[in-house]
């Protein structure tokens, strides 16, 4: 490898006399960079690009799983436009996603600032580990655990709220409370990762900026608004995009905890893809919902990046 690189370097340094064709080794050396990046592109092609193309192709078919597919043109797309359940699933998914992304950003930032403010290294290590630990648990286990905790009739949350004099709702069976409850479950498991992003972002802000702000007489609030937030904005953008995409493809909580209910109030888009394709065995229609989910997700991610030019600061000292 090193030898090839050296030969390639020599070849580049040697002045060409007339129309001298580069040697075989030189041409091979030119391929080396592609070999390095090929695993990533190969995996991308096999596991993302080809399934995507297949999904788009299948979306134009009426294909009962284990049956014979028939071309239906745009029928699946027309059906989807008139499908009130799909619209409800889209609304639920957006609500869940927006609440999750916002909560991730605010809570993770607050936690990161709190941990950074702590002078005890032991506390810092413990809190970091404690918040990241749930991320290592299986989603199914987390769902079952929260199902028990949030159970209205047997769970401890409702029990202790009643003891405190509240009249708690049935969190997982209430049309109003079901999405916020699922957001809580999601936050419990995944907040640790956003917290780590934020903590790293905070730690990378040069101390000299705060010192300069202090010298200029800036209050703690002004330092937060004019130093911390702008300097943290690239990390915040990354955290928002990642949590937005993660929340948009949510499935586990809805499938295990609520089965999309009550009355489809917590049915998510990905869950609707699963139901259509693997419970109703309409592979074509399931693919259509998948394609539309992709388009919506892509559009909103592009919008996020577009808007970011007005609030994300990439300046570094």
């Amino acid at each position, binding site marked *: 490898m090193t030898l090839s690189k050296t030969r390639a370097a020599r070849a580049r340094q040697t002045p060409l006399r007339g129309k001298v064709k580069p040697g075989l080794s030189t041409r091979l050396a030119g391929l080396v960079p592609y070999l390095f990046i090929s695993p990533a592109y190969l995996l991308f092609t096999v596991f*993302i*690009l*080809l*399934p*995507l*193309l297949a*999904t788009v192709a*299948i979306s134009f078919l009426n294909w*009962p*799983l*284990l*049956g014979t597919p028939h071309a239906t043109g745009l029928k699946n797309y027309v059906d989807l436009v008139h499908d009130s359940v799909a619209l409800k699933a889209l609304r639920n998914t957006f609500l869940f996603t927006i609440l999750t992304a916002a909560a991730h950003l605010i809570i993770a930032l607050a936690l990161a600032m709190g941990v950074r403010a702590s002078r005890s290294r032991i506390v810092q290590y413990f809190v970091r580990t404690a918040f990241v630990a749930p991320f290592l648990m299986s989603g199914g286990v987390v769902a*079952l655990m929260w*199902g028990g905790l949030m*159970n*209205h*009739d*047997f769970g401890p949350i409702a*029990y202790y709220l009643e003891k405190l004099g509240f009249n708690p709702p*049935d969190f*997982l*069976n209430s*049309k109003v409370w079901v999405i916020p409850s699922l957001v809580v479950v999601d936050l419990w498991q995944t907040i640790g990762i956003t917290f780590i992003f934020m903590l790293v972002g905070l730690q990378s802000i040069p101390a000299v900026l705060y010192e300069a702000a202090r010298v200029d007489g800036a209050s703690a609030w002004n330092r937060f608004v004019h130093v911390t937030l702008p300097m943290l904005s690239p990390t915040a953008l990354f955290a928002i*995009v990642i949590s937005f*995409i*993660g929340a*948009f*493809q949510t499935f586990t909580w809805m499938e*295990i*905890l*609520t*089965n*999309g*209910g*009550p*009355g489809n109030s917590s049915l998510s888009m*990905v869950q609707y*893809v699963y*139901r259509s394709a*693997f*419970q*109703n*065995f309409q*592979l074509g229609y*399931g*693919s259509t919902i*998948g*394609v539309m*989910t*992709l388009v919506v*997700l*892509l559009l909103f*991610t*592009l919008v996020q*990046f*577009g808007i970011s*030019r007005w609030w*994300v600061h*990439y*300046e570094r000292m």
Partner: protein
Amino acid sequence: MAHDGVLSNRFTRRTLLKRTGLVGASLAGATGFGATLVGCGSSNSGGSSGVKTITLAISGTNAVTKKNWNATFAEFNKANPKIKIQGLFVNANGWVDFFSALQTQLAGGTAVDAIYIPTEGMQLFAKRGLINPLDDYVAKDKAYIDALYQDINQSMLKGFKAHSNPDGKTYYVPYAYNTTCIAYNKKTFASRKVDPPPPDWTWDDFKTVCQSVSNKAKRQYGFLISADVWGGFEPWLTTNGAKLLNDSWTKSAIKSSETVEAFTYCRGLVADGLAPAPSTTANGLQLLASGSVAMVLVGAIAESTLAQYGMHTSDLQIVPWPKKKQQGASIGVGSIAMLQSSKEKDAVWTFIKYVTAPEQQKAGRGGTITDGQLPIRDSASKSPELLKQMPDGAEYFWKMLPYAQFVPGTANATAMEGAMIQTWSDMLTGSISPNAAAKQMESQIKKNI
């Protein structure tokens, strides 16, 4: 201040990578599937040893299920050394889940020779051409099949034949059945000074018992209502003279005053704090063992299953479903189905005959008793040896057969059942009225029948 983003006009290598990553992340998030599907296959067999291996797909991955089926496979292999069976235990939460998971596996090319299918899925698999008709085998072993059929409750056999063989061909030979009954925890009843209910108890009696054992402040309830068709709402319909489908399973019959009355009664149990709201994560036997509920729905149940929850058969008493207009229960029949794609059909037939043979039925082979089912033969399900392995009152499982109604198992069973279960749960929690639930279920049946 420098801005960078996807909408920037500057198109650099970094921008390219960023955009590629953005699209990739979005695609990864949005596309859950799309892999090329291939046809079903059959497991490997033969080889130099001449031993044929067949794969049987079974719902459930718990230790007791696996242990019993694997013991059955070992016994079968002793009797038939040239045939080896391996279980494909599918992790599923209910039959809808099992059918979904299994069809996906079959579409993905998983080699399966046989499937344990209950009534709910018989037409689903048969009408899709996945199941091999057994007519030739039945004709070849006519004497055996005749003897088997004579040893089965005739009303159940008639219903089974009518609903499991949609085009007149024989796709399934019955192996096990389960009827819905109720089990109560004797200790809970005794501690709350509740008298044992009589076998001919009514809905009113049932409600009185629930009121006696329930204490919402202590989180104690009378009965856990299942989020299910077979053990959820069908028994309540049956005992009130209502039904889901007409006799030929071609039309909905659910929209009736009897249905609305049954739904209203069940909603009342939840609203009055006599039954907990349905939960996708609640475990009936666990709640029964802890005394959180006093009664649950049961099919056949054995010591090994109860032991997982720290209970014994002596802790429970089985009683029939309470009646309103008539005695009733719902019923499902299980069968070992031979797949069309199997290359070892004769070996599968040998196994079907083995598990339906009188001595194996009496021994409670496979999932019988432990997985909520009774052996299909009367001579086995009524035998004292088998009854003593279950709680007192287990005879009601077969005594209810003349009144039992088959759980629907149409060609689109997964879609229909999944939608109805959700409507049932919504009705119980008060999200929709009983009347609206009956109407909604009717449209779900019409859409999927």
